[in-house]
């Protein structure tokens, strides 16, 4: 048997490589997994179909399991376009020279994080980041999230003058915004911080019991999500391809499509708009 096995393997293994080379390369994009997966899959499949129509190339959406995986796929040129958060976009563009931010949602120019609390904490709506929060349990979203980690940590440090681990009795990373909402709503964590659009979406969809959890503070605004494209797409897909992608994204006006994000539309943006995110990332030692 082992002899047979030894005969089979040298044949089988190279085949593994061969399958990957043969396929012609479509235009591939990904998105950070910041929400429930079925919703993401639905949303971005629609975007893929839309882009394929507009750009007249084969467009494929590939889901990934973490923010870092999205950045890595972009960096390794396995995807050429991505819907990043503020921080992941900065991480990606720093590592891929020539890449640029193309478009952000209208809401992303002035994005916010909501701090939410379970009713058992006794915290009032709009209470602010108060001393009473000390020693409660708190959850961020994903480790690499802008609205679920970077900005809330920044404002927590500003308010308490200490790292979140010192302020709270337990600090968790829920993984994504939908999960942060449901963890705080169920009382598994007393406090949490999340993307305000996801919060409003979940409330509207009736996934949350509005009595059991309330917004206690909202951060000042900052720039967040954006579409980022690699600099070398023009070479591969033809002159002016990146601009065409930008036009297609800006021209997205199907209400159903926009609502799935949820954004009211897309507006042009450039790399410099995210300077503030880069600075905060460096301050918190998340960026080098």
């Amino acid at each position: 048997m082992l002899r047979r096995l030894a005969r089979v393997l040298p044949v089988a293994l190279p085949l593994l490589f061969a399958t990957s080379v043969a396929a012609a390369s479509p235009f591939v994009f990904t998105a950070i997994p910041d929400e429930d997966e079925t919703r993401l899959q639905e949303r971005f499949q629609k975007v893929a179909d839309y882009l394929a129509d507009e750009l007249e190339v084969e467009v494929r959406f590939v889901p990934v399991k973490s923010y870092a995986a999205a950045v890595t796929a972009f960096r390794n040129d396995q995807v050429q376009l991505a819907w990043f958060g503020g921080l992941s976009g900065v991480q990606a563009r720093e590592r891929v020279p020539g890449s640029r931010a193309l478009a952000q949602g209208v809401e992303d120019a002035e994005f916010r994080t909501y701090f939410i609390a379970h009713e058992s904490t006794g915290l009032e709506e709009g209470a602010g980041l108060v001393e009473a929060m000390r020693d409660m349990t708190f959850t961020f979203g994903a480790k690499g999230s802008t609205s679920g980690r970077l900005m809330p940590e920044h404002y927590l440090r500003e308010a308490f003058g200490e790292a979140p681990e010192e302020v709270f009795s337990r600090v968790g990373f829920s993984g994504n915004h939908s999960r942060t909402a449901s963890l705080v709503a169920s009382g598994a964590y007393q406090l949490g911080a999340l993307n305000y659009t996801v919060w409003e979406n979940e409330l509207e969809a009736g996934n949350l019991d509005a009595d059991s959890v309330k917004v206690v503070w909202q951060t000042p605004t900052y720039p967040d999500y954006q579409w980022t494209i690699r600099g070398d797409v023009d070479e591969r897909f033809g002159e002016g391809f990146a601009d065409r992608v930008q036009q297609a994204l800006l021209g997205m006006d199907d209400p159903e499509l926009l609502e799935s994000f949820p954004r009211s539309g897309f507006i042009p943006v450039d790399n410099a708009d995210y300077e503030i995110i880069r600075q905060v990332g460096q301050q918190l030692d998340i960026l080098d």
Partner: protein
Amino acid sequence: MWQSKTVRTSLALALLAIVCLALADLQISAHDPWAELGRLMQGLTHPDFTAVDFLGKAIVRTLAFAFVGVGAGAAAGLLLALLFQHRAVRTTCAFIRAIHELFWALIFLQFFGLHPLTGVLAIAIPYAGIFAKVYAEILDESDPQPSKVIPHGSGMVAALLYSRFSQAWPHLATYTAYRLECGLRSSAVLGFVGMPTLGFYLESSFAQGHYTTVGALLLLFYGLIGTLRLWVRPRLLPLYLLAAPFLLGDGLPIRWQSVSRFFTEDIVPEPLRQGEGVAGLLPWLGELLVDEALPGIWNTLLLTQIALVATGLLALLLYPLVSQHFTGRHASGRIRGALGHGVLVVLRSTPEYLLAFILLQLWGPSMLPAVVALAIHNGGIIGHLVGQRSNAITLRADAPRGIERYAFELTPRLYGPFLALLFYRWEIIMRETAILGILGIATLGFHVDSAIQEIRFDRAMILILITALLNIGVDILARRLRNRLRLRHTASCEP
């Protein structure tokens, strides 16, 4: 003397675990954990198999990655086993198997990305290290006599094949089949980091509370492992191995520049990359050690110790379920034995990672889900093996019955082999403990995951290296203890 040493060691380990228990965070923080568990149970009893297309795909991918990964690992392991007398080979093997397949996957993801090769190598590399060690042990145990009577001038390969291999063959085959089962578990778990296997769908269905899909996925997985013996036939194996590479899926094409960039830039410590030289390296390393490595090591050791003792206790409680001395030999006993067997199969075929993931969803983040998951999986394995061992014991006709038989007759006689097995799994428990950090428990894996999320592979690699060294250290400690207590340990320690 023999006995008192064993007792002293056992008591010391148990005492240490109690101290650790006091230091560990074992709180249930979920608001209503039992309602959540109820929903899961309902999902298991009302599984939804309607999403057939993706269930089928998940199963095929899980099998394909397991077959290609384990096949490649076994082939490489066999070659390494033949060179196992060289210290360099032994050290290399110890090192590559000290790194968990999920860590390997996280490393390969950085430059092969979502390509099948990532999953295949993540299984093949650590498995090659394990295969090499166990194959070498099995070959060593074979009788050297036949090789002496082989005529001079026979080729080395022929000599090996007709003497050592032909004797060791049944053991090699049994062990390889067992590893295939492990490979299926590994393959399923790789889905959690993005490979298209069962874990991928399990994670998302769980996250969204689709418990009926979770139920279907879990039942399919148990079915797959439970029926392994029926469909993995020696004759069919070449067919599977040939077909598997074609069923891995396409993934995304590899850019080979990413590979060289990973080795020449990404994993070079930041101060060196910035040209700060050794002067910058030391503070960087110091900070990494104090802020991340040491707390990670502390929690890893704490959790390993508690899980080790919990595993031992559970195994001692479980083994009577599959021991004929308790179930009885007649018809009704057989049924009881089969039931007990079924329970242990479910316990041990659920990967720790998966169990810990489920329990974390139910109970909230603390060490408790990890301890329970490790104890259930490993306790199931050891309980099964100790039970089997007990069936080889012949009792006197007037042997005591019931609890007395358990406490004064069988358990003392099985205690040696039991400890040997437990020590054998010590390293495995620690390797798993570290990896559970990815789920949010503050062991080393948590810090590795953080470094990867921050796209700082220089830090991730150093933390993975520390994890590997820790595992090697525990392995050495376990071997010392086995020798001190004169516990026989051989390849047959693995089921």
